[in-house]
């Protein structure tokens, strides 16, 4: 492990359509434990934004509190970031998005931050269909306070102290589908092939996109009797491979059409899914709930894009706000002036 981030950049490093190298999407040096799943997620976000040709300064990164919520410091250093208070990132993201709908909002949270202290705000940001990508870096435990159980820990799983969890777990993906989320994916920090296209699809989705990413805690929850360990997740992960094709690229059918399913996003880009067994219609909320439930009962984890509602109204559509950013308006547009006040006064006499 190194404590210095090398400044050297290869002069011939590939650039994206904006002429930016991947390095320009990186952040500061991670202070998380070596091997932490969260760092892989940060790397996937960097890849996704680089490949999507997003200008870093047009992204706002928001987070709550915990190991996961520290990670916005480790990617997109050219973006503004807001590390808020524990469990309250959704409200800060909501306000920020209302003020300026033109930015891309990426929220990073953990299982404690979302499923325990922040469950209320999480549920309501889902309901409001805020246009943002919400990534839960889910390791089933509280890392920063040294390994206490979280609400996503599976019943019967053992923590590092050896205690067996007796409480039933909260499945955030299922909860989100149940209460009206319009994009729900699940992935594994160790599966970059699946995670990067999923993040790209989530960012491209208009509305609330949840990614529940299982991200093993190497220090406190990576042992044999944990259900969030690298070994266990690799064993039970039933991954649905995902590919993301931006609008501008030609879709080349190189796969057997019998195993491919394509979802066209609102902006014309396409998410392509490859899955043979247990096929279900991912645009059918009830089917998505049944499928995820079925896998859980089998002791497996279904990963991939679990549910999508392509044409939904995000919060601004529901509120009927102007297309322009509210923060761009000045007194000439916002202040009614003294004449209107005179009429108010006259009505109060």
């Amino acid at each position, binding site marked *: 492990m190194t404590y210095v981030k090398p400044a050297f950049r290869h002069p011939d490093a590939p650039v994206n359509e904006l002429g930016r190298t991947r390095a320009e999407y990186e952040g500061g040096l991670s202070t998380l434990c070596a091997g932490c799943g969260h760092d892989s997620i940060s790397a996937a976000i960097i890849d996704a934004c680089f490949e999507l040709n997003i200008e870093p*300064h047009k992204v706002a990164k928001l987070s709550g509190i915990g190991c996961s919520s520290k990670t916005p410091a480790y990617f997109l250093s050219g973006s503004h970031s807001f590390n808020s208070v524990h469990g309250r990132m959704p409200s800060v993201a909501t306000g920020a998005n209302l003020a300026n709908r033109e930015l891309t909002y990426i929220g990073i949270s953990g299982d404690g931050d979302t499923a325990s202290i922040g469950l209320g705000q999480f549920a309501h940001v889902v309901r409001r269909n805020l246009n943002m990508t919400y990534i839960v870096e889910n390791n089933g435990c509280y890392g920063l306070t040294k390994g206490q159980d979280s609400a996503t820990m599976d019943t019967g799983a053992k923590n590092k102290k050896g205690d067996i969890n007796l409480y039933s777990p909260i499945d955030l993906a299922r909860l989100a589908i149940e209460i009206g989320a319009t994009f729900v994916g699940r992935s594994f920090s160790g599966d970059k092939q699946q995670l990067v296209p999923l993040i790209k699809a989530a960012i491209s989705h208009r509305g609330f996109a949840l990614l529940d990413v299982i991200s093993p805690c190497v220090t406190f929850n990576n042992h044999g009797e944990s259900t969030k360990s690298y070994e266990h997740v690799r064993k039970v992960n039933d991954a649905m491979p995902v590919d993301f094709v931006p609008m501008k690229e030609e879709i080349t059918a190189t796969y057997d059409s019998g195993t491919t399913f394509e979802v066209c996003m609102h902006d014309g880009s396409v998410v392509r899914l490859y899955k043979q067994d247990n096929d279900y219609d991912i645009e059918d909320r009830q089917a998505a709930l049944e499928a995820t439930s079925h896998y859980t009962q089998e002791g497996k984890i279904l990963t991939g894009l679990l549910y999508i509602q392509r044409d939904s109204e995000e919060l*601004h559509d529901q509120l009927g706000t102007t297309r322009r950013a509210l923060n761009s308006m000045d*007194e000439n547009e916002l*202040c*009614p002036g003294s004449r209107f006040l005179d009429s108010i006064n006259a009505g109060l*006499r």
Partner: protein
Amino acid sequence: MQAKQSINDFVIKFANVNGTGSASANGMFAKAIFRMGIPVSPRNIFPSNIQGMPTWYEVRVSQDGYLGRRGGTDIMVCVNPQSMKRDVAEVDPGGYFIYDSTKPLDLRLVRQDIHYIGIPLTEICLREYTDARQRLLFKNVIYVGALSALLNIDFGVLKDLVADQFKGKEKLITPNIYALELGHQYASKHFDCPIGIRLERGHKVAKHIEDFDNILMDGNTAAALGAVYAGATVAAWYPITPSTSVVDAFDKYCRRLRIDPGTGKKNYAIIQAEDELSALGMVIGANWNGARAFTATSGPGMSLMSEFLGLAYFAEIPTVLIDVQRAGPSTGMPTRTQQSDVLMAAYASHGDTKHVLLFPATPAECFSMTVEAFDLAERLQTPIIIMSDLDLGMNEWMSPPLEFDDDYRYDRGKVLSASDLDAMEERFGRYKDVDGDGIPYRTYPGVHPDKGAYFTRGSSRDEYAAYTEDGSEYVRNMDRLLQKFESAKEIVPEPKIKQSELETRYGAVFFGTTASPAYEAIEILEKEGIELDTMRIRAFPFNADVERFLREHDRIFVVEQNRDGQMRRLLLNETSVPANEKLIPILEYDGLPVTARKIAGMIRNYITHGNVTPLVRRILKEEATA
């Protein structure tokens, strides 16, 4: 028995059942007096309930323009048998008790020292109306009609008010005027009208409220208009009495004023949040991103918001919060007034935090201070809390008209644009004190492709917003925040100080809704030879004027509506004057707006029983013997 006699000077109270439509009839009564040019101050004293419980409406009429509660009741209009026993007992000797005489009065309720005026309200309604709802609603209008004869209210004014009230629902005008006439006729026929307590047309100008072309409005609506004028585009809130009508009014005016004419889209966003935590989080998020955003709440909501207030203080994010105070602690008395959030608001959140507070005393100040709060919040990059209360927020007050200067431009504070960033030679430091006033420069997200991005956090950071646990960096930052608080003293509203006619070493300090009854109390005491200088505090942190006032007086009565003397404690804590001995708490906290008589009584009691010779008297005596 001598009946009370007075012209344009009395207190009348209506005892109603809530949810029966009495509020609009009572409001019409008060507004009619207002339109006759007579100073009036109405107050709802209502339960935390929707239908069926006792509710009162107290109207003070004051020739001299006193707008606070006086104390005592000259006329009781009793329409609620539930509360009749206590309502009878409350009438001052020589006063009047007006009741529904459809049923004979319980003899146990008959007092020899007051006058009874029975009007068969139910009987008239049963005779005139067949619909149950109409019988309920018109009963209220009928007693207002009767009062117009008994008190000499200009009937033409009442008719105009009915026409105003039902603009757009014209078919309701005639039946309402008919109901007024029913009451008027009954009273004229059966009683010697007008009675001893009566009205005469005035000119709405009185010594105490100065020479304004006054309006009658509630503070919450005024604050909402302030937010509209200040350019607030985002409001997030959670319903709570008595602040709910702030956002309701903001919504109402935005629907009228903030719709883009081309697209029909809204140039604002209002979110009813899932709780107050979320409401303030949204406000902080929006302000961080460069929109002007606010929330309105009351004490319990403030408690929930305190974590976020600490974040906004430490991360230096402009935030505007309107706290319409009610009686606490806990759920307390949700529909009763108090000034008991002062200390919580001043120091809300864990760690070393201090917040800027503004104390409006009139609807005009609710408006102007809300406009000002957005400027202060952005200038200082910190939360600004407007400390209103139920009495000011939910009752209609006579107030100077709302004023706005069209040349006025928003002060958006120290914000760097893309060209500012390009022109900068040094590295941008979000928390660097460039100007020596403790206030750093900020940038909005998305402003520049390569410059100005920074990491906002509630954890310790250096001048460039990088995380650090270096103690000296932490201390430097905390000291800068204190320096910023010092800078705030120069720009927050100054106190209003009034010198008494004769020189005195006595002072009285008050703020918000305590001001009106306190000014009246000071005049009562003046007539008794007790002179006091007064200071109405309008903001925290306290500036040099406040310190000077404390220093220059030997005994200072701090009048406030809470149990613990919170403003007194804040003065002791936050000024350099050693004033513990000389600050005398004058407190009222029963949930009803404090009365002038009570304030005068408490100060008088202290002076006459506290072995303190009134200084003025002593001076006069010394002069006489000299």
